[in-house]
């Protein structure tokens, strides 16, 4: 299967490890991975902060870059939800843009969706001998309705002990530019999330969005807790031979 990787601008710039993990995981599962080099950003930050014109421009660019692929995989629930849920609202019904969105948006999958629904695997042959807790990020949970797909994948990882996170469904407080515009509320939400993570005794906090992990991980780091944060892709890419290339 010919799969295009939509790395997302945040992962491309700050978390290339996650991208390398997706490539290695998908190849291990027999996919032919392509990286359309013209890709940049889905436009979520601009649209959600109130800069629709810039966001629409980025959305148009996205639909042009990813037209023609069987499947597009994104290691981000939030960016996948942006394309699938919000793109249709950015275009005029019946316009060329609407046709392009209707063509591309349904082919965009968050990683765990792609593995479970398209490739129909839940055991990806991973090995990760650690105590892990999972935070279902808001756009994965309430936007894409990922349900138990990510935890089904984690449960099949050899050596991994999955512990449930108290109040898992509560937002961590990142919210994109919300973290900067409402820093006090954002930090208070992050502190409560971090405390719940610590209560699990997990060594690793896992999620399907690095932006949320950057916020929770940054809070856990500032508190010197020693808890690591890892994207789902990095855990699923790990094997007895080692982790992400």
């Amino acid at each position, binding site marked *: 299967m010919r799969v295009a990787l939509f790395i997302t601008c945040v992962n491309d*710039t700050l978390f290339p490890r996650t991208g390398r993990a997706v490539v290695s995981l998908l190849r291990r599962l027999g996919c032919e991975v392509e990286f359309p*080099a013209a890709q940049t950003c889905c436009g979520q930050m601009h649209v959600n902060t109130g800069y629709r014109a810039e966001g629409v*421009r980025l959305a148009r660019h996205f639909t042009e870059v990813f037209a023609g692929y069987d499947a597009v995989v994104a290691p981000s629930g939030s960016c996948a939800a942006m394309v699938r849920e919000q793109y249709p609202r950015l275009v005029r019904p019946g316009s060329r843009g609407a046709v392009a969105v209707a063509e591309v948006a349904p082919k965009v999958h968050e990683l765990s969706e792609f593995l479970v629904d398209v490739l129909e695997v839940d055991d990806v042959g991973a090995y990760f001998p650690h105590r892990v807790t999972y935070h279902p990020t*808001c756009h994965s949970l309430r936007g894409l309705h990922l349900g138990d797909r990510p935890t089904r994948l984690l449960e099949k990882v050899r050596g991994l002990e999955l512990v449930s996170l108290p109040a898992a469904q509560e937002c961590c407080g990142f*919210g994109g530019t919300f973290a900067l515009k409402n820093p*006090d509320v954002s930090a*208070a939400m*992050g502190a409560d999330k971090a405390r719940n993570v610590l209560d699990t005794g997990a060594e690793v906090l896992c999620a399907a969005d690095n932006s949320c992990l950057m916020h929770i991980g940054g809070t856990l780091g500032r508190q010197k807790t020693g808890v690591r944060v890892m994207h789902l892709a990095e855990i699923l890419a790990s094997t007895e031979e080692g982790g992400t290339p």
Partner: protein
Amino acid sequence: MSATFLGMPGDFPKNAARAVRDSQLRYNLRKATHTIRGKRAAVVGELPDWQELRAAGKAIKDETLRNLDRYLLRLEEAVIGAGGHVHWARDAAEANRIVAGLVRATGETEVVKVKSMATQEIGLNEALAAEGITAYETDLAELIVQLGDDFPSHILVPAIHRNRAEIREIFLTRMDGAPPGLTDEPAALAEAARLHLRERFLRSKVAVSGANFMIAETGTLVVLESEGNGRMCLTLPETLISVVGIEKLLPAWRDLEVFLQLLPRSSTGERMNPYTSMWTGAAEGQDFHLVLLDNGRTDVLADEVGRQALRCIRCSACLNVCPVYERAGGHAYGSVYPGPIGAILTPQLRGMETELDASLPYASSLCGACYEVCPVAIDIPEVLVDLRAKAPHGMAERAGMRVAGWILDDQARLARAQRAATRLRGLVPRRLPGPLSAWTDTRDLPEIPEEPFRDWWEREG
């Protein structure tokens, strides 16, 4: 006299920052919202057809709003036919003028009130006071707010920010007839308020209420409440004046079947509402006036995305699940409508001219919990994002977003920016200056990697 929200200074982030630092307030809010949240989830979970009910509620409200003009005229005809009087108020000032005139015509200088969001929205109590008329709130929590010269901070439980020790203090210092030995036991507090209010119910000749629903077909008004104070106000006085937003309509009597299931389960977490009062026109010996309030609602109706906010039945489920409301409290929103619904309703009803109102669409992490629990499926995040596009933006932010957009428009520019960041990776301080300090005050920065993904792909992919 409770204070009015209009013209409140500050903006949401600053108001919220104050609330976040108040540990007693955070404890009160957390405990209260989590309790109601749990009760709601339990009783909603009992109904196998909840999603169908929710879809029906949405559909009925949408159909009503689409034909609002027709239904309003039908309602007017039915109310007049049943002996009531109907008044139309374009805005708050007109509604207040009408109510004050009606009260003055009775010769009375006191009114008792049933808890009503519409009359708070228009600042009726303050307007009546200016005319020499005293309005007494009779809902227990509204009474606490009024006696404490305070602001409501929740739609359903307006004194949610107060604990029982504070309530005892307010009663002892501000309430006529409070027993000197009053304890902070909930039963003792309720009994003191009950005796105080009973005297008012029996004395007052005029009552002011709102309504949860108005039935166009029959001209019936419906009030849902939990304390029985509403029933007292609606039935005892000689004159009843109801101020109701024009969006509170339902086409037909049978539509209540849906909403009398949706509302109690969503708001108080009860299967059935304790006191549901319904009346059609003027009851025997009572003069009834209905004041239909626009106050910005027709403008909201004209907005294709924002109009869904008019489906709201004021249940507060969105407040009780909102992680931002839980930490910021209701006062931070500077409006009688706090929480997620307030963040989309207030800027639409009042506009976004003030710093506070312009900050409200941003008072959300867009987590979507509000949409999930809304009994009439208002997509609050969708409206928030739409309002953000209409909100005024600061110059520095505009410049920053324009530059970010310019870089992201083109892969080569993005790659150059990434490589520049990589070269600076050793130089990034632990604490950033300016607006970015909002991040580094409480969070570590992620380490900038040795190379962006696209460079690795080009070399090894």
